[in-house]
C-alpha cells in the first residue's frame, strides 16, 4: 500500500513537472534593488543583498558555484558533490534527493540552490522557514547555460557567468560547426549504455542524447524517451557502429565499459568488430554543470575520431 501511494506521488510529481507551464527563460526585473529573479521553475525570487551563505543541493549546482569563483560563499554541499576536489571538503547536508532540512536550517543560509527533485517537498519546506531558494532545472545544453547565467545574477558574478557561458558556447560551436554539415551516412550509429544489468540506455530528453546528436552521431534508440531498459536483441540487431559506456569514477567503477568489451554477443556488431567501444564519465554526460562541454568533446572524439582525434 505504502509503495503504491509512493508510486502515485512520484507519478503525480512527474506530471506536474511535465506540465509545469512556466519553465520558461529567466528574466530579471530592471529595478536596482531589491532584485527579482525568475528561476527555472517559474518562481519569482526576491532579494535585496547578494547572498553570502549558500547551500548547494546538487553536484551540478556546486560545480557552477565553483566555476563562478564563489566557492568561499558555499557553506554546505551534498554527499555526491565530488567535483572539484575542494567540494568534498565542504560540510554536507546529506544525499541530494534526501537533504537534511534541520542541518540546512542550522547553517542559516541566505540562499539554497535546489533542483527539480526538490520541488515537491524540500522547496516548500525551506520557503516555509523563510529561506531563499533558487531552483535550477535545466534539461538541455542551452538551459544549462541559462542556469549558469541565473547563478551569476543571484551571486553578483554576472561578468564571470557571461565569460563562462561565452567560453562554453565557443567550445560547443567548435564541435557543432564540424558536425552540422555531416550527411546522414556520415553520422555513425551510436549506442550509449547507462547500466548493464538490465541493459539501460538514455535517449530522447536526456543530455547524453543531445550530446550524441551534437557530436555528429545517431542514437540507435531514437524512439525511447528518457532512460529505460532495453532488449539485448534489439541492440544486436541495430548493430551500432560506436558503443559508449557511461562510467562512474566514484564507486560504480567501469563495470558498464567492461561489459561492452567482454559481452560475447556484442562482438559481432560493427562497434565490436572495429573496436569502437569507449567510455565517458557519467559526471560529464549527465551532470547539468559547466563540464558538460567536456562530455560533448569526448563524445565527438568517440564518434568522429577522424575529425577530433582519438579518445581515451
Amino acid at each position, binding site marked *: 500500500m505504502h509503495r503504491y501511494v509512493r508510486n502515485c506521488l512520484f507519478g503525480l510529481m512527474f506530471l506536474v513537472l511535465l506540465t509545469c507551464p512556466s519553465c520558461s527563460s529567466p528574466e530579471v526585473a530592471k529595478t536596482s534593488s531589491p532584485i527579482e529573479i525568475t528561476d527555472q521553475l517559474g518562481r519569482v525570487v526576491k532579494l535585496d543583498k547578494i547572498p553570502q551563505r549558500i547551500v548547494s543541493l546538487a553536484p551540478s549546482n556546486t560545480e557552477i558555484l565553483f566555476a563562478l569563483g564563489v566557492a568561499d560563499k558555499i557553506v554546505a554541499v551534498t*554527499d*555526491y558533490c565530488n567535483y572539484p576536489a575542494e567540494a568534498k571538503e565542504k560540510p554536507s547536508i546529506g544525499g541530494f534527493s534526501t537533504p537534511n532540512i534541520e542541518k540546512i536550517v542550522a547553517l542559516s543560509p541566505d540562499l539554497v540552490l535546489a533542483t527539480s527533485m526538490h520541488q515537491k517537498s524540500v522547496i516548500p519546506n525551506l520557503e516555509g522557514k523563510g529561506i531563499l531558494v533558487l531552483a535550477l532545472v535545466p534539461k538541455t545544453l542551452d538551459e544549462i547555460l541559462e542556469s549558469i547565467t541565473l547563478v551569476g545574477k543571484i551571486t553578483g558574478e554576472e561578468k564571470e557567468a557571461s565569460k563562462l557561458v561565452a567560453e562554453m558556447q565557443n567550445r560547443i560551436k567548435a564541435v557543432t560547426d564540424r558536425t552540422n554539415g555531416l550527411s546522414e551516412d556520415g553520422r555513425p550509429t551510436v549506442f550509449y549504455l547507462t*547500466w*548493464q*544489468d*538490465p*541493459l*539501460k540506455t538514455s535517449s530522447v530528453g536526456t543530455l547524453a542524447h543531445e550530446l550524441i546528436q551534437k557530436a555528429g552521431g545517431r542514437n540507435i*534508440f531514437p*524512439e*525511447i524517451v528518457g532512460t*529505460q*531498459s*532495453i*532488449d*539485448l*536483441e*534489439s*541492440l*544486436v*540487431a541495430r*548493430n551500432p557502429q560506436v558503443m559508449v559506456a557511461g562510467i*562512474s569514477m*566514484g*564507486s*560504480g*567503477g567501469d*563495470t558498464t565499459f*567492461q561489459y561492452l568489451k*567482454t559481452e*560475447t*554477443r556484442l562482438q*559481432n*556488431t560493427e562497434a565490436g568488430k572495429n573496436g569502437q567501444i569507449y567510455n565517458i564519465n557519467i559526471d560529464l554526460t549527465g551532470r547539468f554543470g559547466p563540464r558538460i562541454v567536456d562530455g560533448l568533446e569526448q563524445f565527438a572524439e568517440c564518434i568522429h575520431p577522424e575529425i577530433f582525434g582519438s579518445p581515451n
Partner: protein
Amino acid sequence: MSYKADLSSQTLPVHLIRWHGRIYAIVGLCILLVVIAALATTIGSVEIPLLTTYQVMISKLPFLHTTPVWSSGIETIVLDIRLPRVILAGLVGAALATAGATYQGLFRNPLADPYLIGVAQGASLGAVVGFLLPVSWSGLEVGAIPLFAFVGAIASAAIVYGLARVGKTLPVTTLILAGVALGALLGSVVSYLIISSGDKMHGIIFWLMGSFSLSRWMDVMLVLPYIIVGTVVILLYARSLNVMQLDEEQAQQLGINVERLKLVLLTAATLITAAAVSFVGTIGFVGIIIPHAVRLLWGADYRFLLPLSVLTGAIFLIVADLIARTIQAPTEIPIGVITALCGAPFFLYLLRRRRKVIF
C-alpha cells in the same frame, strides 16, 4: 479436460478416471511447454521470419549442413540471446513453482512460498554485498553477484533451520516464524545498505527487481544441475508429501521419518530456489500461485501436483518473460510486474470459478 465425459461413460472407477485425466494433463502440458518454448524463441523485439528462426536452429544440429543465408546478427539473436533466455525462464519458473509446492506441502500452509524461510532476503543481501565490496571481480567469469547471492540464500536458510531446531525435531511453526523474523532483519539491512550505497543504488535496485535480460548459456549450465537434482529429489518424495498432509504424527506412525523428510525436502527446495534467484533476482508470485492454480485444476495429490507445477511454472514464466520483452519493445518491463499483473487475475478467476476449499 474430458473428465466429465469420462464420468458419464462409467467404464472406469472414479479414482482411475482422475488418474487418467491428470496423466493426460501431464502429457498435454509437456507438449504445450515445447510448443510455447519454440514459439517464444521466434518472437522478440526484432522481427525475424519464423522460417529463418528454425533454419538457424536446425543448422546447428549435427550432421545437417545448411549454408547460412542470414546475417551473423540474426544467428546471435536466435541462438545466443533468445534460446538461453527462454530456457532459463523455463528452468526458473519450474524451480520456483516446485519449491513453492514443496514448502506449502511441508508446512501445510497455503501462504508458504519459496521465499518463506529467508532465501530471497539472504540472496538480496548477498547480492548487495557483492555490489558494495570494493573489489573488481573481472577475473570471475560467472560474475560475483550470482555467487554472493547464492551463498547468501543458502546461508540464511541454514541459519533459519538452525534457529528453529528444537533438539532433534523441527517444529514447522517455529521454522516459519524464524524465517519471517530473519527475513525482516535481513530485509532491513538490505534497505539500509541500498540507502547508503550512493551511486550503486540503481544497479542494486534493478537487480532486486529481477530480470532475464542478460541470460547466457553459461547461466543455464550453472543453474541446470541444481534444478534438475533438486526437482528429481522432490518428485521422489511426492508420496511422502501426501502422507504429510494428514498430520506429522500420523505420518510418523505410517513409517515416514518425518524429520529426515523435512531436512531433505527443505534442502532440495532451498537449493533450487537459491540457484534460480541468484541469477535472475527475486521474481515473486510464481512460487505461491502456480501450485495453487495446479491444485485448483487437478487436485492436491502431490504425485501429480509436483510434476504439473514444474510444467506450469515453466510455461508461465516463459510466457511472462515473452510479454515483458515484447509488449513495449525495445523497452523491457520488469518481469515481476508481468507475473503479478497477468497471474493474479487468472488465479482469482480460478478461485471464484471453483468455489471450493483448496487447501
